[in-house]
């Protein structure tokens, strides 16, 4: 079944023809060519595919593209204000060496931003560790990711994002 779908991705209106079974992550990567969002486990465990749909984090491997009809989607590509100015969360990941291979990083960053906003920019280490249960990293051991998120929370507040 071919269906026309239209949504806003990173502030730009996009549309395309998809199959009913096309996943949101496939639409982003294969139809729009936005490969920043990764597919890790494809079983909604690892969180590499996390994007924001209407402001909240979702696993885009477990949502159909047609379910995002009319939605506002934000991916990792839509965070930085410009080519030379990263989002405070991206900056904090860089400053704290919160990535090694980088595969999980797009999902980590998207989940982390949602987490900071849900907790009104106030987080402690225990909360961050608990809230990261839907994002798997197999190389950093999480310590620097936790540090980065704790550092980014006040930076995001100061930057008003």
């Amino acid at each position, binding site marked *: 079944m071919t269906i026309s779908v239209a949504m806003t991705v990173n502030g730009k209106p996009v549309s395309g023809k998809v199959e009913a079974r096309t996943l949101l992550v496939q639409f982003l990567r294969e139809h729009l060519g936005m490969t920043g969002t990764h597919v890790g486990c494809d*079983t909604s465990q690892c969180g590499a595919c*996390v994007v924001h749909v209407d402001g909240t984090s979702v696993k885009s491997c477990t949502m159909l593209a047609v*379910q995002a*009809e009319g939605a506002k989607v934000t991916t990792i590509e839509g965070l930085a204000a410009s080519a030379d100015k990263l989002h405070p969360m991206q900056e904090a990941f860089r400053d704290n060496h919160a990535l090694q291979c980088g595969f999980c990083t797009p999902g980590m960053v998207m989940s982390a931003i949602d987490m900071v906003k849900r907790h009104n920019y106030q987080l402690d280490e225990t909360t961050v560790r608990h809230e990261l249960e839907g994002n798997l990293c197999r190389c950093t051991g999480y310590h620097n990711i936790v540090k980065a998120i704790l550092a980014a929370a006040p930076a995001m507040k100061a930057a008003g994002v």
Partner: protein
Amino acid sequence: MYDFAYHRPKSLADAATVLKGKDEARPMAGGMTLIPTLKQRLARPTDVVDLGGVKELAGIKVEGSNLVIGAMTKHVTVATSADVKRMIPALADLAGMIGDPAVRNRGTIGGSVANSDPAADYPAAVLGLNATITTNTGKHAADSFFKGLFETALGEGELITSISFPKPDKAAYMKFRNPASRYAMVGVFVAKTGNTVRVAVTGAGPAAFRVKAMEDALAKNFTSEAIKDIKIPADGLNSDIHGSAEYRAHLVGVMARRAVDAANK
């Protein structure tokens, strides 16, 4: 995933109509179980009826001493609702323990209850709180709803519209998570209302079930001490690579005692 015809009805009546004419149609709530099931080709529906556009199914209402939660209400909404926290804090706690934040942003109470996954959390609360399940065709009591592994009293094309939870005097939910998947290896919901106590278990058996021996003991004396010698038979309990039936039987006792202690706090 095999392809299917996709429908997004705007009303419950339309959803029921679409489902009615088709043998192999599946309703989809949050899709947190259905989409992974389709990917693994464990189901092959001809039609998927997405309930995401049916606005009348979402929302939380307080009706007297009952909390009425619409079927399409998301876990995150239940976990953070002021009404739920005030009326039945144990239910908000349970919703906040499901999956992870991204899953809680999509998954719904109706989907979880209709699916009757042996490791799902909500069935324990539905059974433990003696909730009533309202559908587009009638009502079901919790005690006759969960029939077995992925099997409920729902008929062909019958859709849950809301679930009504009576407010207990005290209640708590404790779960022992599988360390990898975070699903309940065993979860126990304990609720005390007047002189009645209900103890409902998820994760341990093919579907959620009650433990009468613990309920009777707790009705006389609502302390964890009162149930410390009650052993759960392992017969018929789930046994897999994550834990044997005997291990799960043991966990039921541990989680029940922790839940009673938490309810008394």
